[in-house]
């Protein structure tokens, strides 16, 4: 139409007509005056008619423009971003939604390549796939990132459709285009990512705590590995740090960074001082976690890294404390996005857990070594040491294990039978012993006797007796060292060994051992200390020797220590107590035992043995704290947790399982209280539980293989995400969370996408139909205008009149089509408030509205309306329209039926009513039954109407969530139009 003359056609036509008349006088000459006048009048009438037609045409075009702007605003307000691309990937058209996604104005976007707006990392992948997508966009969906506002990344799901658009100007070729639809899925992406991360964190902690390590090194490597995973880092390393020397040492680096250290050992030293260390030691200097997300920015403490080092982009470093001292630093780097405080906390928690285990392991190892050494010494001793007590009655109080070597009896035999003491003595030596006992043992005495061993062999035994007395001077016990001196050499050797062993024992024991001389006036002086004592207290032997507690430790502490020694002397018995002392060797907690040593009737010495329990105490505390931490986690986590014990029958088949522990979240999620659950079995709680579940869990408890699944619990109407694993054989634990909401969202999202897709399809089908069917009348109008011009040229006015009539009809048809179109487009949006009303009344109303028409046509039609039509819920005016159109349609296609009958009835289905309008008219062949509801579809081109009525009916029914279809056995068999309405209102 753009090719038309610029001036309006009406004056031009007039001009031409006048010219024609002027140039053809010879034809007119033959006409009578009356005829000329008549002709002139006729021409005037046509002139006016033409003007009117033109007016109509203009208003039609205005309607078209209105419809266009309506679709344009639909396009712009859609929640989906639309981008129209040409073959080169240049944006040709775009809607407002997409512009808001990338935060550019529309004019800044159009004409630019689409990849300009994509995230850097997605560009090449997009470009690589663009050609193929352009050629064949069907079934290709991909997820991309857009650069959104404030450097935010927007995740979008993209789907394409190929469009062939008319050229912008006539004469140019049609252009192929690709329409891409962008749906924002950022929120969903973030939620998924966070959930995965939380699960991974919890899992890592549990794994570290349960990791069956065989060495400290292995445990720490495992922890670093987990730390990389949890913080999504590429590389990491662990440094040891000595706070005293301020030296750092690389313990190890992760695999990704390992190669680097081999590049140049000089540039990458293994040990270095705090002072010369850059950012790697920043966590030590600040004594807290350090996060650097912009490594390229200058930092006062950055030293850079050696040539060939992996590029660091982001960096997180956390110090590890032991007893308030930093002992290590763990660092990770190059997470794909910024490190957060959560990462730092998580890393701290993981490293703390691991380090506590390291400390505990070290302690256990040290304890094992010391025990072993002590046992070896005592058991290999050649002498038999014992203590024989007379109170309350005679018995062995202590017998060293070497009694067996000397006598062949076990210590137990002696403990149980005190009489063995005398029986051991060779009968010939008994009188000698009795004589000595009669004299009364007053002091230490050496005694040489013959003993009969258990196996009958007689040995010479030299015994050193030490009698022990109570305060009244009565003999209460004696201690003795018995030595087999049968073989002198052996004895000498044994003595030597014994001395050496005592020395080793004394200095080798982990306990700090010290000997105190108790003076006549009651003063205490240190005589000897062992190596452990010297090391742990920080006092060399020469500092201590000969000093009193007050002289060594000062007034305050000295007085306390002195008090303890005095207590021992006052009680006369060994005493044990705990003390925490601040000595040059550091603040340590000791478990100290003081043993009074009697000499010459008084306590002359005190032997002290102090066990350093600092670490053990701290370890106990740390285990308690870590347990508390897990307990807190357990109590407060959002996921439900349940620990179960598997129950097997005699044949080893799993039959049931028992609940051992559940957390508060379990109670919340399942609705069962802990006291209802714990101790009971699954069969008791859930009698309908399928055996397959028990077998599945048994498999986990047996193999330790974890399982993750989602499950729907019908009684609770909830979806659970469950991960089951086995903390130890025969047991399994389940961690689960309520994902009903997420499932719901997923379902809604699917539904939404489906709706949008079907809307999209409907829209494109609609656009296609509209453009095709609106073109029809336009072709007619413009074509016949050409004929009218020809007719006028040839003076064929009759034909011109007839052709103008065609033009008028075509314009009217166009108007009707546009009205139908507008009506149809309104239904989706403008709907009256729904209400409950009688459908019977609506039917009656519709029939009455039609009766007039039927009467005008001079026909008789019989109506049969079901008397019991139900109440329905919906838009009354629209549903009236449905009945009117269906009845109208039935009337239109009654054909030559001599006894026309239209029936209206219904039936009830599960959750909907099904209504029908049945006629006995011309019917529809099965092949065409689907097409009758299409817009502008008409089976009979000469029938009245424009193919809008049934499309309208279908739309109204669909807006009411109903369905519509037609049944007909074929031509001449009548037709039944069925439609459904839900019983309950739908959202």
């Amino acid at each position, binding site marked *: 139409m753009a090719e038309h003359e610029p001036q309006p056609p009406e004056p031009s036509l007039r001009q031409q007509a006048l010219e024609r008349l002027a140039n053809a006088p010879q034809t007119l000459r033959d006409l009578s005056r009356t005829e000329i006048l008549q002709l002139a009048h006729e021409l005037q009438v046509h002139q006016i008619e033409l003007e009117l037609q033109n007016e109509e045409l203009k208003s039609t075009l205005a309607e078209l423009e209105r419809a266009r702007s309506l679709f344009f605003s639909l396009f712009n307000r859609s929640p989906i971003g639309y981008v129209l691309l040409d073959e080169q990937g240049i944006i040709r058209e775009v809607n407002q939604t997409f512009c808001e996604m990338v935060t550019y104005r529309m004019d800044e976007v159009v004409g630019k390549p689409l990849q300009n707006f994509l995230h850097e990392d997605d560009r090449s992948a997009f470009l690589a796939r663009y050609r193929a997508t352009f050629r064949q966009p069907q079934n290709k969906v991909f997820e991309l990132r857009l650069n959104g506002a404030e450097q935010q990344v927007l995740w979008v799901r993209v789907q394409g459709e190929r469009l062939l658009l*008319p050229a912008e100007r006539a004469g140019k070729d*049609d252009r192929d285009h690709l329409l891409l639809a962008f749906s924002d899925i950022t929120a969903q992406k973030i939620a998924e990512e966070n959930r995965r991360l939380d699960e991974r964190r919890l899992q890592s902690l549990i794994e570290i705590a349960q990791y069956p390590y065989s060495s400290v090194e292995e445990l720490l490597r495992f922890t670093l590995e987990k730390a990389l995973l949890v913080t999504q880092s590429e590389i990491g390393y662990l440094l040891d740090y000595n706070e005293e020397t301020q030296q750092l040492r690389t313990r190890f680096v992760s695999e990704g960074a390992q190669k680097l250290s081999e590049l140049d050992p000089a540039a990458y030293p293994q040990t270095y001082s705090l002072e010369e260390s850059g950012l790697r030691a920043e966590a030590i200097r600040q004594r807290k976690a350090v996060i650097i997300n912009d490594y390229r920015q200058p930092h006062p403490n950055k030293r850079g890294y050696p040539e060939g080092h992996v590029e660091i982009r982001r960096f997180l470093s956390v110090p590890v404390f032991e007893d308030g001292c930093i002992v290590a630093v763990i660092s990770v780097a190059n997470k794909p996005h910024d490190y957060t405080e959560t990462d730092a906390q998580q890393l701290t928690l993981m490293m703390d857990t691991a380090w506590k285990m390291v400390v505990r392991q070290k302690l256990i190892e040290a304890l094992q070594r010391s025990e072993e050494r002590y046992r070896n010494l005592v058991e290999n001793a050649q002498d038999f040491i014992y203590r024989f007590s007379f109170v309350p009655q005679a018995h062995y109080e202590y017998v060293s294990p070497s009694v067996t070597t000397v006598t062949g009896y076990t210590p137990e035999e002696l403990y149980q039978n005190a009489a063995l003491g005398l029986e051991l003595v060779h009968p010939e030596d008994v009188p000698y012993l009795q004589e000595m006992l009669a004299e009364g043992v007053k002091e230490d005495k050496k005694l040489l006797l013959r003993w009969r061993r258990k196996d009958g062999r007689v040995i010479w035994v030299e015994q050193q007796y030490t009698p022990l007395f109570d305060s009244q001077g009565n003999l209460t016990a004696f201690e003795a060292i018995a030595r087999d001196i049968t073989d002198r050499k052996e004895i000498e050797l044994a003595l030597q060994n014994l001395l050496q062993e005592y020395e080793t024992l004394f200095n080798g024991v982990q306990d700090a051992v010290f000997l105190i001389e108790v003076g006549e006036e009651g003063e205490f002086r240190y005589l000897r200390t062992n190596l452990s004592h010297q090391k742990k207290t920080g006092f060399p032997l020469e500092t201590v020797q000969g000093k009193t507690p007050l002289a060594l430790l000062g007034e305050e502490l000295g007085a306390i220590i002195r008090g303890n020694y005095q207590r021992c002397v006052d009680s006369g018995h060994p005493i044990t107590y705990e003390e925490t002392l601040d000595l040059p060797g550091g603040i340590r907690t000791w478990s100290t035992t003081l043993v009074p040593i009697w000499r010459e009737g008084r306590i002359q010495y005190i032997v002290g043995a102090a066990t350093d329990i600092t670490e053990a105490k701290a370890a106990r505390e740390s285990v308690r704290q870590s347990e508390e931490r897990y307990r807190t986690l357990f109590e407060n986590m959002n996921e439900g947790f349940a620990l179960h014990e598997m129950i097997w029958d005699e044949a080893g088949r799993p039959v049931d399982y028992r609940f051992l522990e559940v957390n508060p979240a379990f109670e919340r999620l399942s609705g069962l209280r802990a006291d209802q659950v714990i101790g009971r079995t699954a069969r008791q709680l859930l009698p309908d539980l399928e055996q397959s579940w028990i077998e599945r869990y048994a498999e986990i408890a047996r193999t330790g293989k974890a399982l993750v699944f989602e499950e729907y619990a019908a009684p609770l109407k909830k979806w659970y995400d469950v991960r089951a694993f086995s903390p130890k054989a025969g047991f399994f634990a389940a961690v689960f969370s309520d994902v009903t909401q997420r499932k719901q969202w997923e379902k809604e999202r699917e539904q939404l996408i489906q709706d949008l897709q079907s809307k999209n399809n409907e829209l494109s089908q609609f656009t*296609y139909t509209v453009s*095709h069917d609106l*073109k029809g*009348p336009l072709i007619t109008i413009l074509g016949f205008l050409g*004929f009218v011009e020809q007719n006028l040229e040839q003076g064929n006015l009759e034909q011109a009149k007839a052709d103008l009539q065609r033009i008028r009809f075509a314009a009217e048809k166009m108007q009707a089509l546009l009205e139908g179109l507008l009506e149809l487009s309104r239904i989706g949006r403008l709907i009256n408030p729904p209400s409950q009303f009688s459908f019977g009344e609506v039917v009656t109303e519709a029939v009455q509205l039609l009766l007039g028409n039927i009467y005008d046509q001079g026909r008789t039609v019989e109506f049969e309306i079901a008397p019991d039509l139900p109440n329905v819920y919906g838009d009354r005016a629209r549903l009236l329209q449905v009945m009117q159109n269906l009845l109208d349609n039935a009337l239109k296609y009654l054909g030559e039926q001599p006894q026309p009958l239209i029936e209206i009835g219904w039936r009830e289905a599960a959750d909907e009513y099904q209504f029908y309008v049945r006629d006995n008219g011309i019917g529809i*062949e099965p092949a065409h039954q689907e097409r009758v509801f299409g817009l502008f579809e008409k089976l009979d081109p000469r029938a009245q109407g424009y193919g809008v009525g049934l499309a309208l009916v279908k739309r109204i029914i669909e807006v009411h969530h109903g369905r519509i279809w037609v049944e007909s056995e074929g031509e001449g068999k009548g037709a039944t139009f069925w439609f459904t309405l839900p019983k309950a209102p739908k959202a």
Partner: protein
Amino acid sequence: MERQKPIHVLLVEDNPDHAELLRRLFRSYLVSNVFCQVEDGEQALAYLNREGKYADDDRYPYPDLLLLDLRLPKVDGFQVLEQVKSSPKHRHLVVVILTSSRNEQDVQRAYQLYANSYLVKPYRMEEFTDILRYVGLYWLKWNVYAKTSS
């Protein structure tokens, strides 16, 4: 090569105005001697298969050219095209699609079903005239056909 026998066009067009338009254009430019029109796909197939009244060869001669609209009541243009091109009896018939649709999918599908040509109804009279004249000249006068036994 001049054709000696009368030239016949069958137009399948449901819009009576468009049919009239085409009829007049054909007549004015003496493109064909015989011009028949049917309104839908069903009739078109009946015509070609000589069913019912179309058995009368004199009134309804077998066409040399089928001008076919796509959007038709009952049986649409694609179905007619498919039947014609898959039938050994009719596949030699020249089928020219004449429609108002420029839709790429329609064009693709028409050629996939072996349409001989695809034309879009123009708005301008002059263009319409040109199209029909050249269609007539090309298919009915200039184009050389192999001799067929059918």
